[in-house]
């Protein structure tokens, strides 16, 4: 589904990603760990094609197409969707209109129903992200992705700023979105697991989201380099015991 080869990325002239190689096969959810400033968000923004993230070397392939320098909207239409950590507010644009834009007339996309499942109906008539709390932003982003139904979902810290009660709902929605209601029951009223599970890359800082979603693989990004790939829960345990630096060192010594 997604293949990243020897990717190097600069932001503002500073190298952030130094040599990234990874593959996310169809239907797999991969988790990306890493301390602040390690380049996690840079990787996601680069995958989506946002400006300011300059690929200086390497190649990104999605569904067999070279998307390294493809415009953002073409990547979106090809099937990549992103949940941003701090999306911008857009004055005067109603959340309902944005969700409709995401659905792009897709058959069976019922904005009202999707919003109801996320307990977000009251926000449809509010301006996009205007005075939304952290948890409300997450629900808004997931609602948009539910309407968009991308094949590869990029989630940047889906649990940050979310209270304990909402995190269950966020987890369930992500599972429904990815078509894998394995660990948790699928959100009530949704259609249940999709015919084909989607691929996902999830950034997490704390690992809390792992209590709610199932990851096939985990990786640690440290100082712009992927230094570790194995079972996500195992990685989380290691990080808790040794810290990121210890993790990075021990992977080098392997």
């Amino acid at each position, binding site marked *: 589904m997604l293949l990243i080869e020897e990717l190097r990325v600069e932001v503002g002239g500073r190298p952030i990603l130094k040599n990234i190689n990874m593959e996310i096969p169809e239907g797999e959810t991969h988790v990306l760990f890493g301390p602040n400033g390690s380049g996690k968000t840079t990787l996601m923004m680069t995958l*989506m094609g*946002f*400006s300011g993230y300059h690929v200086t070397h390497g190649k990104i392939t999605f569904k067999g197409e070279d998307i390294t320098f493809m*415009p*953002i*909207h073409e*990547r*979106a*239409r090809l099937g990549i*969707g*992103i949940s*941003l950590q701090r*999306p*911008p507010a*857009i*004055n*005067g*644009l109603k959340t309902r*209109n*944005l969700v409709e*834009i*995401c659905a*792009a007339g897709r058959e069976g996309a019922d904005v009202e129903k999707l919003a109801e499942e996320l307990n977000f109906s009251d926000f449809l008539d509010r*301006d996009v992200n205007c005075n939304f709390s952290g948890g409300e932003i997450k629900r808004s982003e997931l609602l*948009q992705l539910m309407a*968009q139904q991308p094949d590869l979902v990029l989630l940047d810290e889906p649990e940050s700023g979310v209270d304990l009660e909402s995190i269950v709902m966020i987890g369930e929605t992500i599972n429904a979105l990815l078509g894998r209601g394995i660990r948790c029951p699928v959100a009530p009223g949704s259609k249940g697991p999709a015919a084909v599970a989607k691929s996902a890359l999830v950034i997490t800082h704390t690992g809390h989201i792992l209590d709610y979603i199932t990851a096939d693989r985990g990786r640690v990004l440290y100082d712009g380099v992927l230094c570790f790939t194995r079972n996500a829960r195992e990685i989380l345990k290691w990080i808790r015991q040794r810290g990121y630096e210890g993790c990075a060192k021990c992977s080098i010594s392997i």
Partner: protein
Amino acid sequence: MFDFDIESREVDLEKFETDAQAHDYLSDLTHMDPADASKMLDVGVDMGESARAGSFIQKDKSVIHCKSRQQGLEIMGISQAAAVHGRLRDYLWKSVNPDTDRFTARAKEIPHGGYFIRTLPGVKVPHPVQSCLYIAKEGFSQNVHNVVVAEENSEIHIITGCATAPRLDSGLHVGISEFYVKKGARLTFTMIHDWGKNVSVRPRTVTHVEAGGVLVSNYISLKPVGNLQMFPTTWLDGENAVARFNSILVAAKDACLDVGSRVILNAPGTRAEIISRGITSGGTIIARGDLVGKYPGIRAHLECKGLILKEGIMHAIPELRGYVPGVEMSHEAAVGKIDRREIEYLMARGLEEEEAVSTIVRGFLHADIEGLPANLKAALDRAVSETQKDMM
């Protein structure tokens, strides 16, 4: 290349015709010339009078329709009011001084009518009154004088659509307006302009609001206009009086809009808010706001946001003046281009860059104006979409 000073776009009063042919009175609005009716509909004046409490329509110098459909609501031409209404002399030229400038002097010297609208005490008019000031004659200088009196505890919404006939190129509109919002009354005044490309416009408005009264004033100018300058003044004279101003301005190529409001918070507990949104695509917008706080504890806020889409000038002049300790006044002004992050956010949802920009512009211009009838709201949404297409 550009010039900030609207006065440099000298309006030569002698260039305009001061007289126009009279137009016949229409007792039935559905007999309105279809081309005129369509222009009027664009500025919120509906010949079907759906959800309207009454209408006043003036074409050039002639009142061609005037009717109240509601008890306790008076609508008449200003000259008729002068003849039959003893109270008018208490209001006419009491707030606006004819010597203010050469336009007010001209309106005093060569008057062409205008409207008198009054709600009786306690009458709450459920639907808006629509009024239209229309220029059909090329090169005509239309000088109107309007008086609105909302008596104690009454409520009224007036939609004033000002427009020129299709294909009309130049003209001058001078509008003197004196509004009186009595104790506990509420006046909502929505003005929509659709002038010709070389039309000069000089509204001169002063409003007095008594204790507990509310003035909500909305101003929308999306279509090309030559040059327009207005700076309505509102006096909040009574305790807890409130004034709210919203304006939505678009300056197409070569247009010059100098639009602002001044509110004098002249009594304890008064509040004022001025919100202005402007987009220039080749024209000049001067967005002014002047809040004057004269009592401790008054609250006033001014917000002015401007986008420069292509070339053009966006000049925000927010002013706050506090005369005593304890006033609470603030302003927020921003001039710039569309945030790249907003564009890319929408692109990440599948919109092409151009679609993303136009979606953001539509949102920017889409102010939530309270109390608009659904059909007017829909018409404005359409106008915003068209305007936005023209700008791109």
